[in-house]
């Protein structure tokens, strides 16, 4: 089937070969975990432990505060040695619970009889998801339980599963779909039950033939053809961006300023679905995740299972260290990921990858005036005019910028990527967004 894809987009070099074929490896448990209480969109969790408390593996150490928030659990058993501010991926001063390993593991390596989830009600399932502190694992880390409880008056008809993984370098979702296709399908069925609907559509970019094969087989084997559709997607960044994914699969446009809910859709990443299933079947909180550790100067790039709160230094050491001097340390992929200012930062629930760029891969660009080539306009998947937005912000003409839809920007970075004048266009647009948000 030929899918008409979204307008715009780019084809950055994938660099996925570094880790594409590397099966999952469990990294050893870190001696210390720095667990931020804010790992999600919304309010930070409230700490439930005190210094010197002994915590068990998977014990709740932070309780969700308010509707949009998520529980946080101890990733390792041990003693709470500190509850203090540390730089986290989201903030210079994020409250962290620091746990030092001690005692024995209560759940790891032990067999738990899976729950028969089909006997549970939608609300009971949702509660399990909430308790386990599941958040979106593709990057934005929106609390999953909140996403799965749309307001009463919203009619949801389709659950869209995001297996696009369009970010260069990252291969974790690819490997997850290849390794655990049946588990992901089961997770989708659980989600459908929670949402009380019976149609799911999973989108996977065509550059992941093995994942497509595995998922297709899992659908076939379980005889779920009626409920779960598989959509191989054109390879184009940002195919995995929520609005572009929904458009490609369902031809529905999420209206400006609104959410997928408004067009009857809920979207979750395959990683989230996998974690959700474990939460429902085994009551397992989100204390570890799969991620890609990659970059040309990483000795053993690959796909790893890592405890939440493990620091990047520890992870890199486990991956054989670096073969060169790092210039940029990025949490997430190279297009949307966040650059970190030190390597002590810990992995959070939304960390899909750790990317280390070497000295020769990071150029500090001096930018020059726009030459009006129009490449950013052609690349923008939202059909904005990044060139004009950039010019307006550069001249501090926020009155002009306001008329150019800055809040419709999804921060995919395509405009900055293509600009031959090396203008930091998405940075300018971010600046406009921040400025307007501060005014409001």
């Amino acid at each position, binding site marked *: 089937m030929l899918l008409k894809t*979204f*307008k715009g987009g*780019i084809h*950055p070099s994938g660099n996925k070969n570094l880790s594409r074929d590397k099966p999952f490896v469990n990294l050893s448990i870190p001696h210390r975990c720095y667990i931020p209480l804010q790992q999600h969109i919304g309010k930070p969790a409230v700490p439930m432990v005190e210094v010197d408390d002994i915590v068990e593996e998977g014990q709740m150490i932070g309780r969700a505060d308010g509707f949009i928030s998520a529980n946080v659990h101890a990733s390792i058993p041990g003693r709470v040695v500190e509850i203090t501010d540390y730089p986290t991926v989201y903030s210079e001063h994020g409250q962290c619970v620091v746990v030092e390993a001690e005692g024995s593991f209560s759940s790891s390596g032990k067999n738990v009889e899976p729950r028969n989830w089909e006997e549970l009600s939608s609300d009971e399932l949702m509660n399990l998801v909430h308790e386990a502190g599941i958040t979106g694992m593709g990057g934005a880390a929106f609390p999953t339980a909140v996403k799965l409880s749309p307001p009463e008056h919203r009619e949801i008809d389709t659950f869209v599963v995001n297996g696009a993984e369009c970010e*260069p370098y990252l291969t974790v979702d690819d490997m997850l779909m290849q390794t655990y296709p049946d588990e992901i399908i089961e997770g989708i069925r659980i989600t459908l039950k929670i949402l009380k609907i019976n149609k799911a559509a999973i989108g996977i970019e065509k550059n992941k033939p093995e994942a497509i094969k595995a998922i297709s087989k899992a659908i076939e084997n379980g005889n779920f053809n009626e409920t779960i559709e598989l959509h191989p997607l054109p390879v184009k960044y940002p195919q995995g961006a929520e*609005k572009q994914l929904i*458009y490609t699969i369902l031809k529905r*446009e999420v*209206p*400006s300023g609104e959410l997928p809910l408004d067009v009857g859709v809920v979207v979750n990443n395959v990683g989230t679905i996998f974690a959700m299933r474990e939460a429902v079947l085994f009551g397992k909180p989100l204390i570890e995740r799969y991620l890609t550790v990659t970059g040309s100067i990483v000795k053993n790039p690959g796909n790893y299972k890592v405890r939440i709160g493990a620091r990047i230094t520890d992870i890199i050491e486990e991956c054989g260290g670096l073969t060169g*001097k*790092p*210039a*940029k*340390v*990025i949490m*997430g992929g*190279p*297009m*949307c*990921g*966040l*650059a*970190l*200012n*030190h*390597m002590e930062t810990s992995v959070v629930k939304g960390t899909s990858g750790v*990317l280390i760029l070497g000295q020769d891969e*990071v150029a*500090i*660009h*001096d*930018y*020059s*005036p726009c*030459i*009006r*080539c*129009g490449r950013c*306009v052609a690349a923008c*998947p*939202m*059909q*904005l*005019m990044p*060139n004009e937005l950039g010019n307006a912000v550069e001249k501090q003409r926020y009155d002009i910028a306001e008329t150019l*839809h800055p809040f*419709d920007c999804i921060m995919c*970075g*395509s405009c*900055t*990527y*293509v*600009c*031959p*004048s*090396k203008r*930091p266009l*998405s*940075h300018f647009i971010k600046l406009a967004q921040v400025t307007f948000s501060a005014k409001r």
Partner: protein
Amino acid sequence: MADEKRLQEDLVLSNAPHIRSKDSVRKVMWLVVISLLPVTINSIYLFGYQVLLIIGAAVVTAVAAEAAYQFLLKRKVTALDGSAALTGLLLAMNVPPHAPVWMVVLGSVFAIIIAKQLFGGIGFNIFNPALAGRAFLMASWPVEMTTTWHPFSSGNVLSSSLPGVQSLSQEAVDTITSATPLGVLKDGPGLLKDLAVAPGQLYEFLFSGEMLKSLFMGNIGGCIGETSALFILIGAAFLLYKRIITWHIPVSYIGTVVVIMLMYYLFIDSDMPYRAILFHLLSGGLMLGAFYMATDMVTSPVTARGMIIFGAGCGIITSVIRLWGGYPEGVSYSILLMNAAVPLIDRLTKPRVFGTEKN
């Protein structure tokens, strides 16, 4: 300064994205320069080594003028980014092969200082600098700009193929043989009226297979870079392949000319409309204009729809000037006029933002 800064740990901190495409302004400009190599070499072969002198003078003057201006105004000197060199080269492509070098030098200075730097430098100029330079030369030294064509004594079939030409005065023969094909098309009937040469005979000559072949290969009167459609197309194919230009402007420009010429020659004039169209496509500056001058990024629209409108506008003005105007050729003026319309076109062709109603 740049948007990135280094911290004490020597890690670079910046907003996403963390990777960039390898294209740069410098690369884009120099690739366009390289794409003009086939045309340049062909011109030297056809017209002689003074062409090299003209090109060299234009390029060196353009770069020097930009450097001097930026230096004197204490701006960052970016004269080697390729854009000034390209402007010089394109100006040289748009002057006759035997134009005086001093004139080309002045044109180059005008293009860089008046048309580009006074507007704010790269990215801010409204008019295509090379074409503004050419317009300046046309206005200031019209004789030098319209009579210093390269004479092709053997290629110029006019003297032998037209009946009664033998009886022409030497003056009339000189006038005609030293003109461009478009010039002959425009002024020929007047010149030949006294000699009882019917317009049909003139068309037979101009639209002959011989003539079309010459127009394709370039051994004909015309500006340095415009005479050979073949070599321009080779360069254009390279630019399209490298995605430096897109199809929108050239296709809509040339397409519009084809449509208008077809109408004209089918319904108003001539009994060989298809040859006439081919003649118009290959002659004058249409190919050079459509692929190299109209596609200048700075002075053309940024949206695909805008580019199509821009190209169509160029096509209409070119055709109108050629068919009914006072000049034989209208490519450079059509592009300059459409340059002025670009801000308007950009405003009218803003794309519909995803998830919004039509704006």
